[in-house]
């Protein structure tokens, strides 16, 4: 994908920390499983309900899944975060880019979750929760050690910059 002039970027931001490359596996497994489920539904339409256009649907699902899987490594590389002086900066997405800045003092809690595949790979997701539901800062695919040290760092930073609600 060529870089266009209109691409959203923060020129003054420093070095982004990336999530573990192994997280690609988690994403690919998830995408493939979802694709398989859709394929099963389409096949059922074709074989059981005898719907004429079901084979085209099946083909479309396979193509979309394959394209998604092909872009997965890029999407994972696009996820980044950095701890600035007073706020946490987070970015993700290549097609749909999103940047979020959360002051540390706004932290309500930090959540660490591990899915079945991520756990096998030694990965964890870290969620930074504020009083606003729309903040939505979820850093996926951190190694477990990283996730825990980041959590402790965030809690400590929030403690020193506590503000009212």
């Amino acid at each position, binding site marked *: 994908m060529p870089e266009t002039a209109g691409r*959203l970027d923060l020129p003054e931001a420093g070095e982004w920390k990336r999530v573990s490359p192994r997280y690609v596996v988690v994403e690919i497994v998830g995408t493939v499983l979802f694709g398989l489920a859709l394929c099963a539904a389409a096949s059922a339409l074709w074989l059981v309900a005898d719907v004429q256009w079901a084979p085209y649907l099946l083909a479309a699902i396979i193509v979309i899944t394959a394209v998604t899987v092909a872009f997965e490594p890029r999407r994972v590389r696009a996820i980044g975060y950095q701890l600035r002086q007073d706020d946490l900066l987070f970015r993700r997405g290549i097609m749909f880019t999103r940047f979020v800045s959360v002051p540390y003092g706004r932290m309500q809690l930090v959540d660490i979750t591990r899915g079945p595949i991520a756990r096998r790979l030694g990965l964890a997701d870290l969620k930074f929760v504020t009083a606003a539901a729309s903040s939505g800062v979820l850093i996926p695919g951190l190694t477990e050690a990283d996730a825990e040290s980041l959590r402790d760092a965030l809690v400590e930073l929030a403690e020193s910059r506590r503000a009212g609600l």
Partner: protein
Amino acid sequence: MTELADGEWHRLHPASPLLRGGIFIVAVLGFIVANLRERLVDFFLGVPRYGGDPIDEILERGAVGWALLGLTAVLIAILAGFYLSWRMHTFRVTGEVVEVRSGLVFRSNRRARLDRIQGVNIVRPFVPRLFGAAKLEVSVAGQDANVQLAYLGSANADQLRRDILRLASGLRQPAPVQPGAAAPLEGAAAVVPGAGTPAGLGAFAAHRAADFFAPELDPDAAPPESVVRIPPGRLIGSVLFSRFTVFLVLAAIALAVFGWTADTGGWLLVVILPGLIASVSFYFSRVTRSLRYSIAGTADGVRVGFGLLTTSNETLPPGRIHAIRVSQPILWRPFGWWQVHINTAGHSTNKGAGGEADTTTLPVGTLADVARVLELILPGFDSAPQQALIERGLRSTGGDDGFTNAPRRAAWLLPFSWRRTGYALSEGVALLRRGVLSRELILVPLARLQSVGINQGPVERMLRLASARLHTVAGPVVATLSVLDAGEAVALFEQVSSGAITSAQADTTHHWNLPNGALE
């Protein structure tokens, strides 16, 4: 200082269980009356009864004694339950917390830290109001985390709110009672309903009537010039020219066309009549809710009152408002009317009177009213350039007017409103302007901002645009800008994120009566 806020445990109004179980009592009464109707008819009119009545059955079987005994036992059990639940329901207000203990079998104990208070609401539902009782609710952030005191004596509730807010503001001592302000009402509330002698009963009724018709704001608690009043004509007009009316007119046209073309017979009436009744009751409740609307600034926050029969009256301490939206539905435009909604972290579980959420700060008002309301809910944002900014944010059609607007190419995405879509930052407040048919201005105090995000999808990237969103606590106000030059979006992001940090550090509304916001 009332004796209620002295840090000791206190009980609620003795009639509380009755008032809270009021609907149940009415239902039982209705049931008994329904069953006794034959007997009542017989008794008063002398019409011979025609059987089938449970009381007759009891009489015929000679079980009068047992029935009376059973009834008495049930009544005593209910009364004992009420008495015990009243005994066990206690509260106290200390310098740090409001605490409530309640429950007969399952005990519960709830504390709210005073410096986390988001608002104090006093609700007077119609029936308890007749008895001079009021419900006081201390809202704190979080789902179902409010502390509710139902019911208190009406004047006590006002006093207690004043004390709670004063304690929360950082002054450790509640203020002394202003002589003459609440004293006559306090006397009225001290009379337990039904306990007066016949001579006292008349005085009690007079007190109650005086209390019932008393103005919602006691005049000495608020500077009178800050009060916005809505003339009844404007109120009725604002309800008539609402989106709901447009929907009704469209529905009526559709029904008329349908009824004319298709031969439907009479069943169409079955559809129309309930709808008609529901619409009338909707209009009625909307009008009565705001008929006694009031807003005033007090030393401890903004007080907003609503309601005609059931009244609700909420005080929001300074710095508890997370976002403000001033908007104008298109039908209001010829009249120059505006409305104001806010986001707060704590929500009273009592809907404002008339079933409306307590997020409407001004139901309808002119530009001057909006300016007065903004002065109250956004104090310190009233210098001449800032007022000009607000004025342009509301009425300007775009162009170079202090707002950073979307570029012309944004017309691909917003063909009409791109000119007005823009933002401005001024002294710790972000102003987002949008909408050309229904005009909106959103003000977000950066000290309350939770986080900020910018987004870009493929179409926006082709047009070198981006969208921005200021994340605040949940509420009716959603602070988004759907198009913005990509470079400007980045500038907004950087300015707002650094502004949020500096504003939050400078913010002292935590304990709003102390100079630096911290306890000694």
